[in-house]
């Protein structure tokens, strides 16, 4: 599991690649929270392009980060969803709190 960050304005683009499960969730969560804490971030955009696997532990990570940025007055979004991760998002009702966009330009423009 890998995570890389890009900051554009007050948007934190979090690119996740690999498999997000209970084992990898903790490290990913800590790394994202450190970014949010040390940079002036308002919105978080998850880039799921290279996400190969996600289970309910991943849902927990997304909900947790959503709550964080919400406290900062921000929003959470997701881009480049593949059909598998989309299935998990749909099933868990994540789209009620996380907006879906095609790419980062669209997300930045509309958040």
């Amino acid at each position, binding site marked *: 599991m890998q995570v890389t960050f890009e900051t554009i304005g007050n948007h934190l683009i979090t690119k996740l690649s690999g*498999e997000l*499960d*209970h*084992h990898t*969730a903790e490290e990913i*969560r800590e790394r994202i929270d450190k970014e949010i804490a040390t940079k002036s971030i308002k919105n978080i955009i998850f880039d799921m392009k290279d996400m190969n*696997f996600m*289970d*309910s*532990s991943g*849902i*927990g*990570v997304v*909900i*947790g980060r959503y709550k964080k940025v919400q406290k900062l007055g921000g929003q959470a979004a997701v881009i480049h969803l593949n059909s*598998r991760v989309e299935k*998990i998002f749909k*099933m*868990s009702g994540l789209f009620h709190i996380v907006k879906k966009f095609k790419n980062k330009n669209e997300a930045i423009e509309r958040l």
Partner: protein
Amino acid sequence: MSTNNRMHLEIMSKSQNEAFARVVVASFASQLDPTIEELADVKTAVSEAVTNAIIHGYEGGDGIVIIECILRDDEIEIGIKDQGAGIEDIQKAREPLYTSKPELERSGMGFTVMETFMDEVKIQSQKNMGTEIRMIKKFRSCDH
């Protein structure tokens, strides 16, 4: 339906074994030639059940998780068993968004995921004796 093949696997309750367990089960299931989508469903459900045994059964401590798979004509039956704490209220555990460990940032969607992706999910549990989850997935792609 008769049993065509079976396997039995014991792993320590370590989180790094979650990926191992789901890959092994998916690899075994692939003998029935399911679709990629069906295999991903099985992988996700196994991940949930094994994670459940590690976090809730053994509460992060050492224990053994037993995984059993039975292949029949067009379906796989998967049993995932621990000898840990057991589930006090199975009905509650099955509710979407319910988690007994909110401090761990669990989504409470584990059983919902299993029920969504598998055709049948049965839970047997006894306090301090352990939990067994048995799931069946039918592969519609199998034309026998």
